[in-house]
């Protein structure tokens, strides 16, 4: 299935429920938007992330009530180095959206969304463990998969695949 080229024009995409809801809440905080291969991606400002998530969850038209995943991409060595990615699903409306927030490499930190979706608890712990991104306001930000006394964050791109020997 050849896909049509991606759409990145905010005006063309404003009909999408997530774009409409976030623009109504804080238009300046939506940094970029992309519709590609049937998937909607929104890049939002770091300071707006938590509020934006709450707006999407409580949207009357299309409530994104389900957090499928929180993950991260390390774009080392470019800056901003980290992208924390939130995959949201609206069970009533069968709609998906992807939220991204970009963080600089030097002490990456973003507000936790555990208060919005309790499901974020373990996802954020995993991202903290493997990428070293800290989530402020997280109730229990400790390593999840690696041992407590592990050095470094294994999924960072400057961490060798074979580990340190």
């Amino acid at each position, binding site marked *: *299935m*050849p*896909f049509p*080229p*991606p759409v990145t024009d905010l005006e063309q995409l404003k009909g999408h429920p997530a774009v409409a809801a976030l623009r109504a809440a804080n238009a300046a905080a939506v940094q970029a938007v992309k519709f590609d*291969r049937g998937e909607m991606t929104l890049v939002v400002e770091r300071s707006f992330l938590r509020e934006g998530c709450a707006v999407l969850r409580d949207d009357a038209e299309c409530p994104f*009530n*389900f*957090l*499928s995943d929180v993950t991260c991409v390390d774009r080392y060595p470019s800056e901003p180095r980290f992208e924390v990615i939130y995959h949201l699903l609206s*069970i009533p409306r*069968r709609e*998906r959206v992807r939220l991204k927030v970009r963080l600089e490499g030097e002490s990456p930190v973003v507000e936790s969304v555990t208060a919005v*979706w*309790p*499901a974020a608890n373990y996802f954020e712990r995993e991202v903290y463990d*493997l990428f070293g991104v800290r989530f402020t306001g997280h109730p*229990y930000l*400790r*390593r*999840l*998969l*690696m*041992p*407590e*006394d592990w050095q470094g964050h*294994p*999924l960072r*791109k400057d*961490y060798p*695949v074979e580990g340190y020997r």
Partner: protein
Amino acid sequence: MAHLASTPVLEPGQDRTMILNMGPQHPSTHGVLRVLLEIDGETVVRIMPDIGYLHTGIEKTCEAKFYQQVVPLTDRIDYLCPLTNNLCYALAVEKLLGLEIPPKAQWLRVLLNELTRINSHLVWLGTHAMDIGAMTVFLYCFREREDVLRLFETVSGQRMMTSYFRIGGLALEPPLNFFDRVRDFARRFPGNVDEYENLLTGNPIWGMRTKGVAKISAEDAVALGASGPTLRGSGVDFDLRRDMPYSGYENFKFKVPVSQDGDVFARYLCRVQELRESIGIVQQALDGMPSGPIKADAPKEDEDADGSTDLSLQNHHGRLCGSRGRGVPGRRVAAR
């Protein structure tokens, strides 16, 4: 063991409760995790799971692989549903490439995916029943599971680590007698499910140990990110195969079992019904199996419209190959 000392420990709550450590080597944990339990008699009040004992760093391993080489790794994510994991990964890469998968490959994928679901549900049912005292069900379930594993072996040469799906289709044509064997299994299996249900569904001991246990409300299930039968057992009517179909599921008719009670028994009912629905889908796939190729045509190149290609394909032998995982934005990377 040193790190265990520094892992979090629950503070004891009221005087009557007690903190108990379970695992990581407890034989009933089925996949090793450690659980700290706060118990009040036989009731678990709070738990603190400590996971990661089986973490194998698959994502990190993928960083140094070609796209094709990742398929066998996806088997190892969960040995109960290797083909499902193969499919998830293949669908993602195919979406990146914009590949069109031929109908026969799609239908075979659905057929094998549902057999995988049956395999996984049988292990769940068997071990779950055994854990709370019903040994016979375990033996029955593993008898049918063995049939499914033999079907996997017929088609892929491997019982558990199948690696049968490829980016763009399937590895091989299924052998000549494969469909007859699946048909034979599909004919027998509904009777087997009746057998399990005869032993469990109306059984008062099974009921006492599952009804009203571990209740999850619909709100909690959604907020905590539960999915599959756990979500549907709490009364949320949502199934990706029906509501957001992928890989040709829109061509199949099946019911989505939902149960309102939210306890272990409700989830049991959902899964047992799913066994019946899955074998129905297998039957439909057998009856309507299209003919034709099992691999997609390989595009000679693939480039994003914005020029940010990090994946390219060049091959004239009908085989798809991917480039290195990390591409250089804006530059075509040579494929092998």
